[in-house]
C-alpha cells in the first residue's frame, strides 16, 4: 500500500519567505507527527495530531511555525519569515493507535528545506 508522502521533496527559500510543506499520511492512520532533522542529528519532535486535533505542539521552535490538519488526513507545516536556522529536513510520520497508544511511526521521505 501507499506509504507516507511529502511534498515538495526539496525547497529553497530566501530568508524572510513563507513556506508550506505538505504531508499525506497512510490512509486510516489517526496520528500524525512532524519532526525536524538537522544535518548529522536525529529527528526532533515538532508537533502531533490525533485526527484533526493538534494535541501537542510543544516542539515547535517559535511562533513562526504553524501546523494544521483540518480534515484529519493531509497536514501542512507552515513556516513564516524563514530564517537560516530553519534549514533542515522536515519529516512527517503517521501511526495507528493500539490500546490508546501510538507504537511504530511510519515516516515519509522528508522535505529538505534550505534557507539562503
Amino acid at each position, binding site marked *: 500500500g501507499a506509504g507516507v508522502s511529502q511534498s515538495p521533496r526539496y525547497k529553497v527559500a530566501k530568508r524572510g519567505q513563507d513556506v508550506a510543506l505538505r504531508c499525506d499520511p497512510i490512509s486510516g492512520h489517526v496520528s500524525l507527527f512532524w519532526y525536524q532533522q538537522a544535518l548529522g542529528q*536525529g529527528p526532533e519532535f515538532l508537533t502531533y495530531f490525533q485526527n484533526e486535533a493538534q494535541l501537542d505542539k510543544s516542539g515547535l521552535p517559535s511562533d513562526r511555525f504553524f501546523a494544521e490538519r483540518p480534515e484529519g488526513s493531509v497536514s501542512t507545516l507552515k513556516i513564516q519569515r524563514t530564517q537560516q536556522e530553519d534549514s533542515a529536513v522536515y519529516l512527517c510520520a503517521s501511526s495507528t493507535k493500539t490500546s*490508546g497508544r501510538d507504537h511504530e511511526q511510519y*515516516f515519509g521521505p522528508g522535505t529538505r528545506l534550505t534557507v539562503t
Partner: protein
Amino acid sequence: DQQVKQNSPSLSVQEGRISILNCDYTNSMFDYFLWYKKYPAEGPTFLISISSIKDKNEDGRFTVFLNKSAKHLSLHIVPSQPGDSAVYFCAASDGAGNMLTFGGGTRLMVKP
C-alpha cells in the same frame, strides 16, 4: 540535555560478522523503544521495537536487547550484509505514547 544517546557515530563491520549498535537513555519514564534504519534521501524505516516489560525481542537477523537497570539497549545484526549499511537511529517513547525521542544515529558500514 539529550535523553537518548548513541555514543558511536560510526561502526564498520565485515560482511557475515555481527554488528552491535548501542543506545543509552536517561529518562526512566521511557517504556517503549524502537530502532529505525535510514538510507540517504529517504525517511527512517521502522526496524524493530521492544517494550520495557521484555528484555529481548528478535526478528530474523535483528535482535534488540534492553537492560532497564543500566538504561541501555542494543541492536544486534547477525549476519551483517552490505545492504545493512545505513544510519541507525534508536528512539524511545514514554507512557503517553506519542512523540518519539531519537538518538543522534550511528552510521553502519558493512564491508564485503
